[in-house]
């Protein structure tokens, strides 16, 4: 299977704190890859470094055969990387529909945007996406009026609207009820046909159900890496989780 994302020897520090410490991490095309680990293990920092929210201090990131280590966030987004932040960052004063339209129309030239040339053409695509995430009947509401769970779904829908090759989800079920978590799992399953996925999540049952491979981080380093079954039987991982979680 071809490698879509290849992170080599990545380092990222904040002052004296080394959040990501010489990490090697790879994602194959078509896989759902989980990143787990205790709080402060560097999961979100690694995800942000891949998406361009943080620039790495050292190491390299190759995506789809291209070195993106120093690329800006918008360049990475156009290359096919899409990030859903841990803290929901929908645009609160825009309608649900306009939030998705904003992402769907990204990449168009200025003249096309000024003439609103694609507004009509994109409508079916937007409504289809909203329907998939159970938000079609909320389309006209302002994003800030949605419940927390719905805002999370909207943000995942927005991340998917970019038609990414690799979707990065940082705690997509954070703050959700058990029922909302179950539904989120159902909503994510069909995207396997569209793109690969890297997901950071604390809910181990959730991540076990949807991921093919897991990478476990601890104190900024890779503790273990393998299939879900391999990680479940890993003595190193069990030791970390039983001692700290």
């Amino acid at each position, binding site marked *: 299977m071809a490698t879509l994302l290849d992170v080599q020897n990545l380092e990222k520090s904040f002052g004296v704190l080394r959040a990501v410490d010489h990490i090697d991490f790879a994602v194959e095309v078509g896989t759902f890859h989980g990143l787990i680990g205790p709080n402060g293990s560097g999961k979100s920092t690694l995800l942000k470094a891949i998406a*361009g929210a943080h620039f790495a201090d050292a190491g390299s990131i190759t995506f789809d055969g291209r070195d993106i280590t120093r690329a800006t966030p918008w360049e990475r*987004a156009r290359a096919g990387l899409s990030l859903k932040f841990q803290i929901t960052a929908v645009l609160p*004063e825009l309608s649900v529909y306009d939030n998705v*339209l*904003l992402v769907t129309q*990204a990449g168009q030239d200025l003249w096309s945007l*000024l003439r609103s040339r694609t*507004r009509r053409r994109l409508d079916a695509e937007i409504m289809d996406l909203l329907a998939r995430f159970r938000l079609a009947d909320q389309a006209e509401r302002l994003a800030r009026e949605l419940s927390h769970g719905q805002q999370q779904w909207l943000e995942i829908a*927005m991340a998917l609207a*970019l038609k990414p090759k690799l979707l990065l989800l940082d705690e997509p079920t954070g703050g959700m009820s058990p029922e909302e978590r179950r539904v989120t799992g159902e909503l994510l399953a069909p995207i396997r046909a569209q793109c690969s996925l890297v997901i950071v999540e604390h809910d181990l049952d959730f991540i076990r159900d949807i991921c093919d491979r897991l990478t476990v981080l601890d104190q900024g380093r890779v503790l273990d890496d393998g299939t879900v079954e391999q990680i479940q039987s890993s003595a190193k991982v069990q030791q970390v989780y039983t001692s700290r979680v």
Partner: protein
Amino acid sequence: MLVLALITPFALSGRTDLVTLATNVLILSMLAISFDLCWGMSGIMSFGQALFFGVAGYAIALVGRDLEFSHIWGTLPLAMLVGLVLAGLFAVFLLLGRKTPTVIFVALGTLTGSYAAERLVSGWQYVGAGNGLSSVKLLQLGSYEFVEGIEFYFLALITLCAVYLGARQITRSQLGLVLAGMRQNEERLAFFGYRVQLFKALIFSIAGMIAGLAGALYSYHQGFIGPGNMGPGLSTTAVLYCLFGGAGTLIGPVIGTAMVEVITYTLADLQSVKQFWPVILGLVLLAVVMFQPKGILGLIVSDRERIGSFGLRQRKDD
């Protein structure tokens, strides 16, 4: 409002001073709209909008004086070009860096530009130094010359309508959706693939072009342009017009300009108030920012109406 604007000069036809005041309101409204495009629509705090207004005003005054040229088809586009290029240059320095510039950085950068230009012009004899340029050559359309009065009023009104409609086209289009998103969370937009700084530079330049057009009309209408027309004083007043009327609405700045200018004119005869008027204006600005940040229009227009809808409503209307 358009009907009111159309009958105003006829209702005031016996009072040339009031027609002049009304024309000034229309011209300064363009300056206020240019600031609204920056701040209200795109989140760019331009505290030096008068710079583009004043420099363009000087440019057409010099072309009239030195080249004996003041035809409308040449000078107004020239003024727009001057505003566009100057604002574009500022955008390169202030907005196109690798890191996202802060609101304070942009505000201080534009304010400094406005202040520096005022000081430079005040000491430059070629452009009249502190006295400015007076007896600006009259604006011509063929052999017709625009003098103060109803004709100039309608020229300003037509230009304001064109500016308003152009700005509205931008802000209600899919490009306007990008601006609305940029205003709310510009860092997030970068992760959608938008080159945010480029959009900011574009809007800042367009706003500079509008301010330049207003500056040229002001120069022709007053027959004078001085250092104060490009300094922090007028820049701050443009902020006041916009915030007082309601930022992010385009029409609010027009209402704000009319209210501030009419009150200023009314109080100008009262010597006891006149000397304190700048202080009072400053306090009004402070009160608006603290207690009614959405301006006068915010009292009657909801957030939803102010921001508008870019997709679904359009879809239903189709």
